């Protein structure tokens, strides 16, 4: 026997959740890979058909614990598109700020997970330490630390608390000084570079064709960011760079996310400066007409999130379809893994930023 199937998962330290990566290995070289998902399938879309429109928001929070607000926000955007609700300017800016804070938080958690994957518990704890600051900010903002239930159809739940600007500025200033620490631990460590460079190659052509989105796509050298190229909320008024790396490997994907953290800090600063006064919440209709559809897509921290919603004439949707970025990205895993060693699996799959809550839905 020269080749064997190795089940990495569903209970495995590499998997970050419940999924199974079946790899066929020849010695330690991967010749074939097959991701198996569905262990966390909860029938989210069917569940949503039995909930009233506001009740889906906390459920959408549970799609991904890393960046829960970006999902409930996406749901609200889709519902607003369907119901034809315009939201106030201030709400747009608040949403932009919290979305970017979520992006930073999610990227920090990804970095932490990548650290444990690569065997350094230090890289796990340092980003988690700073993520705590952002959780505290969110706690001040909406009263919860992880599943926020903050966006609403037609705006956001409440106005920002007093001292919001001061707190954010303080945390951002502190956080910006900490990113070089991570870079020192990762970029400037020879071993980290050896682990991530030239593994998990995914060319731009492959990435486009396989539907890989978000930082993984930009790591393959495709210059596309929904925030810039299909602007929603207040992104049209804010200057930011789209971080693109030409490396196509795990290191490029890592680098894109690190650069995005700097960009997010900038975006939050700009948004806080430009935030207008006014109300934050428009009263949405309770029901939506039957057969009316709407979709919205956003740049989730992990890629392109899309929701497609159909009204049913009453206060529940007829159908709610979720496109989760990782669902598609993980289908590209065989292309990334083939030909590399078993020891490269954590760095490749770690650089993808797996999240199973949204994948299986």
């Amino acid at each position, binding site marked *: 026997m020269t080749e064997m199937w190795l089940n990495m998962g569903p209970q495995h330290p590499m998997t970050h959740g419940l999924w199974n990566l079946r790899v066929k290995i020849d010695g330690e070289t991967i010749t074939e890979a097959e991701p198996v*998902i*569905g262990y966390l*399938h909860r*029938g989210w*879309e*069917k569940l949503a058909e*039995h909930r009233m429109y506001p009740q889906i928001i906390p459920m959408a929070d549970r799609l991904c614990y890393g960046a829960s607000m970006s999902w409930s926000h996406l749901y609200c955007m889709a519902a607003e598109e369907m119901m034809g609700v315009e939201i106030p300017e201030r709400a747009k800016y608040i949403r932009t700020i919290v979305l970017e804070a979520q992006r930073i938080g999610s990227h920090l958690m990804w970095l932490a997970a990548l650290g444990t994957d690569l065997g350094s518990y230090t890289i796990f704890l340092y980003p988690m330490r700073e993520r705590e600051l952002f959780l505290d900010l969110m706690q001040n903002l909406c009263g919860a630390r992880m599943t926020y239930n903050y966006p609403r159809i037609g705006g956001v739940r409440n106005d920002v608390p007093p001292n919001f600007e001061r707190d954010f500025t303080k945390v951002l200033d502190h956080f910006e000084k900490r990113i070089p620490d991570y870079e020192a631990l990762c970029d400037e460590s020879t071993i980290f570079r050896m682990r991530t460079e030239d593994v998990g190659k995914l060319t731009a052509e*492959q990435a*486009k*064709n*396989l*539907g*890989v*989105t978000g930082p993984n796509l930009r790591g393959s050298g*495709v210059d*596309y960011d929904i925030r*810039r*190229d*299909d*602007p929603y909320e207040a992104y*049209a008024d804010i200057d930011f760079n789209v971080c693109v790396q030409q490396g196509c490997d795990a290191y490029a994907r890592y680098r894109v996310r690190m650069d995005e953290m700097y960009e997010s800090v900038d975006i939050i600063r700009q948004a806080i400066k430009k935030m207008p006064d006014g109300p934050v919440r428009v009263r949405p209709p309770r029901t939506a007409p039957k057969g009316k*559809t709407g*979709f919205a*897509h956003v740049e989730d921290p992990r890629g*392109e999130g*899309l929701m*497609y919603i*159909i009204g049913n004439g009453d206060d529940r949707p*007829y*159908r709610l*379809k979720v*496109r989760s970025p990782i*669902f*598609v990205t993980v*289908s*590209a895993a065989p292309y990334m893994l083939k030909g590399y060693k078993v020891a490269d699996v954590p760095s490749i799959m770690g650089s993808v930023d797996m999240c199973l809550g949204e994948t*299986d*839905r």
Partner: protein
Amino acid sequence: MEEQRSGLARGGLTAEEIAKRITERFPTGVSITSAKPYRIYSKVDSDSLLKLCHFIKDELDFEHVSCLGGVDWLAENKMQTVYHITSYANRVTMEMVVDLPRDKPEVDSITPLWGGANWHERETYDMFGIIFKGHPRLERILNPEGTEVFPFRKDYVTGRRV
């Protein structure tokens, strides 16, 4: 200012231009419901879907399948597959709705064109029982192998254990 940043000024086609080219090329079979910046909404016949996909992929630079899902219309006795296809070059997302008969839901697979549609089609098959002709591996994906029902259909009684 917004246009400059959005990439519409980067040499891509606008949504209206794309809609015009599609209607020129497909006088029948495709009807563009509306076209506004960044968005095209259309209804497509199931016969001309694959031809349209070839056209927009090869000539209009639609590179990316954003989403693909099914809808079960129990009262109207039809099914729908809904495609959202994005063009990175033109910065346009196009929605295509394909109506299918409910008793024989079959549609051409677009996986040979875009690999990104692979798992979406599998999921749609898994949940709605829509057959995608030409799909390389049309199997259950989220439900376990051997499930006999299609749980997202509207006539599936929720609460029943399989």
